[in-house]
């Protein structure tokens, strides 16, 4: 760890100096995959371009390819030049190219891991990485146990052996139910120490999500009304216009609830509903999130308040798209859901009685993620009933993506001689002016891993608590086939009816 307290050049008032990680290696398993090419390698380049990589740094690729470092470099170069956020500059790239390394090997091949362990020792000498390494497991979940066992065997996961830190980054899915998640957590926490395990949920790396905490806890304006006295309901939406993108094998065994609801949506819910943390450090924030996740209650009537859907063929953005069942490699008669809408409650004094409506789906009209807090209507309106027909409920909407920002919707008088009140929106565009400087989620998260900052990573208890919510739903759905919805519309009829019964409607995002 860096020791700012003993370094005379570090001054807490000096906000210009960025935090730069210790010398270290970032080892990526499955470095030839999509995620590595589109996100990880570009993020490393962007960090380098912003001067946030330590002087001693190595990006070590590990994959089943008969490659030398030359082939890896051309792959990495193409990935960085195509997908990096910041401008591609030759001199920055040359420096990163100097710190690239590649090892061929498959996940079940002990020799590959012996070679990797030896390579890490060698890099201490040649690149001065001081025994620090972060392992990024961009691999299918089925390969997790094998890889982790190999790491345990070669002792490369052990902090004490080489005198530096050893960290591991795991991607979702974290298991497929509570039981399997526990086994996985138990394994990864045993091989590494719990503090060295980083579970990536890339939504938490997004600026607007972090801004939600600033919005709530840095202002006096919102917190007093952030409770069941004023809030009528909360809608959290994550809609995608794409289909399953050729990931049929994975998707068909998971479905929307495991793929999105269990992690992204429940994390967004936790950040929206949690109490104020006592401080802004990782432990305090996670403690509050856990409390909320543990307080989530499921609807009593699952049949009407936990809706699954599966898209049928239809038209989307002017193109004809096939039904889920007709997508390549989807088994005939599959009952996997591509849409979920569920009404959850939070059993705390702050939120008792406020429904949290969560929905996610594929092949919906547009790609959007947002959190909408809908406020109660004013208890009394001193206007004529006809004056306020067009007045809805006040809303505070945090737009997570795209077009990041915050919208506040309230009633305003329509100009003219008659008293007429109508909803207007006040917009704070985070995107329009800030995007150029706001880092990509992966950039931020990789930097946090190398710095050892756990704030934006869910802890294993959070994963466990999320599965506690999902498991009963999955159990119920096992005997209830999903409802069909046309590709290009906002989900199945049942989801609309779920809100209609409560006297509400879904927001059109």
């Amino acid at each position, binding site marked *: 760890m860096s020791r700012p307290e003993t370094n005379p050049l570090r001054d807490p008032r000096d906000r*210009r100096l960025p935090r730069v990680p210790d010398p270290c290696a970032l080892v990526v398993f499955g470095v030839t995959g999509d995620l590595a090419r589109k996100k990880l390698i570009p993020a490393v380049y962007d960090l380098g371009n912003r001067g946030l990589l330590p002087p001693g740094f190595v990006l070590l690729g590990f994959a089943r390819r008969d490659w030398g470092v030359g082939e890896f470099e051309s792959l990495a170069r193409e990935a960085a030049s195509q997908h990096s956020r910041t401008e591609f500059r030759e001199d920055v790239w040359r420096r990163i190219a100097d710190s690239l390394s590649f090892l061929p090997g498959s996940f079940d091949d002990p020799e590959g891991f012996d070679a990797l362990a030896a390579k890490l020792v060698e890099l201490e000498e040649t690149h001065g990485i001081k025994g620090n390494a972060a392992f990024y497991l961009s691999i299918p979940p089925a390969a997790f146990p094998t890889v982790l066992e190999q790491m345990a065997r070669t002792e490369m996961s052990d902090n004490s052996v080489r005198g530096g830190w050893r960290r591991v980054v795991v991607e979702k899915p974290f298991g497929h139910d509570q039981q399997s998640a526990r086994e996985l957590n138990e394994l990864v926490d045993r091989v590494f120490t719990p503090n060295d395990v980083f579970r990536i949920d890339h939504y938490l790396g997004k600026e607007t999500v972090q801004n939600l905490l600033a919005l709530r806890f840095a202002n006096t304006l919102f917190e007093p009304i952030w409770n069941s006295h004023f809030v009528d309901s909360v809608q959290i939406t994550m809609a995608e216009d794409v289909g399953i993108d050729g990931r049929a094998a994975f998707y068909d065994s998971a479905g929307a609830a495991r793929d999105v609801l269990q992690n992204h949506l429940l994390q967004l819910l936790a950040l929206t509903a949690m109490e104020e943390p006592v401080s802004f450090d990782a432990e305090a924030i996670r403690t509050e999130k856990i409390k909320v996740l543990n307080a989530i209650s499921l609807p009593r009537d699952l049949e009407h308040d936990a809706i699954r859907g599966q898209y049928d063929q239809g038209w989307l953005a002017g193109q004809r798209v096939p039904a889920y069942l007709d997508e390549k490699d989807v088994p005939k008669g599959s009952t996997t859901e591509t849409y979920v809408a569920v009404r959850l409650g939070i059993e705390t004094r702050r939120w008792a009685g406020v429904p949290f409506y969560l929905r996610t789906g594929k092949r919906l009209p547009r790609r959007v993620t947002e959190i909408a807090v809908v406020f109660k209507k004013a208890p009394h309106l001193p206007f004529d009933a006809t004056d306020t027909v067009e007045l809805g409920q006040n809303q505070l909407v945090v737009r997570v993506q795209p077009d990041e920002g915050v919208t506040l919707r309230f009633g305003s008088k329509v100009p003219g001689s008659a008293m007429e009140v109508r909803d207007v929106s006040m917009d704070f565009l985070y995107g329009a*002016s800030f995007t150029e400087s706001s880092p990509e989620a992966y950039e931020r998260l990789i930097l946090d891993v190398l710095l050892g900052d756990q704030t934006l990573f869910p802890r294993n208890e959070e994963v466990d608590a999320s599965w506690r919510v999902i498991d009963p739903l999955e159990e119920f759905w096992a005997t209830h086939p999903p409802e069909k919805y046309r590709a290009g519309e906002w989900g199945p009829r049942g989801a609309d009816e779920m809100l209609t019964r409560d006297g509400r409607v879904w927001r059109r995002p």
Partner: protein
Amino acid sequence: MTTTLWDTNGGDIVKALLVERRAAGALASGLALSLVVVVDEKHVAEAETAATVAAAAHPCRLLIVVRRSLERDNRIDAEVQVGGRLGPTEAVVMRMHGRVALHAESVVLPLLAPDAPVVTWWYAAPPDVIATDALGVLANRRITDSAQASDPIAALQRRAEDFAPGDTDLAWSRTTPWRSLLASAMDPVDSAASTATVGCETGNPSGALLCGWLTSKLGVETTVEDTKGPGITEAGITVNNGYRVRITRPDGRLATLSLGEDPERKLPLPRRELGDLLAEELRRMDPDYVYAEALSAATGVGGLDQRPATRTHVWRDPAWAESG
């Protein structure tokens, strides 16, 4: 997108800005600050480019003031733009002739974004005493660039004597990558430093500030060596136990880092563009006390952080100087 006003007045500029804003819709909502740029005619294009880069990171209302000959009759020409070639920002470029240029603040004040911080940036030789320029007095943050002066080291001295919290200098922003590298190189070091050196082009104000920073933070004598440049070319720290940190950058682009016995490492350390420097300055609106300490150590002027943060405008008529 653009309205050009010839021989106009402050009131009409305010109206034109309002009309442009309405026409552009929500384009420029979420202003974080007003940036007042004081610039000579020949540097307008450069200042605009830099401000556009900075505005991409910090949405601002850009007010560019060009003061032209005092001798001519009073006249203001203005160009009002929202979301035009200056990027996603609101910009007003004002050219002032005659004595109205001495009262530029009377035009600028009604144009400032409501209740947002004001930053004034002199992209020209900075005034000797900032209190004599009302555009500096009304700002929360003042950015000068000593490197623009004919004698930069003397200009730095002036900045120290005239300092008030909230002042910064681009010569200081230019040291950030060096300071960042030095600080991370010192992270693993346990014992105290014994000596430090800085090598830079003769009369380079950034070199002087880097030296001042090392002196104030390490508490050791730091020597400056003159080199051919460009800019800062090297910096080194020797620690009591003999461990050495040394960074050299002879070509202004690629640096070589050597830490103790470790093998040398090359890394890019390019001299940064004006826009990046400005964006760094706009990132924070609070006084930079680390700069104050470095400036104090570099110039020998003490008590900088004790100075009051606000100035009172001092009227100084250039006509007096000529007659007296």
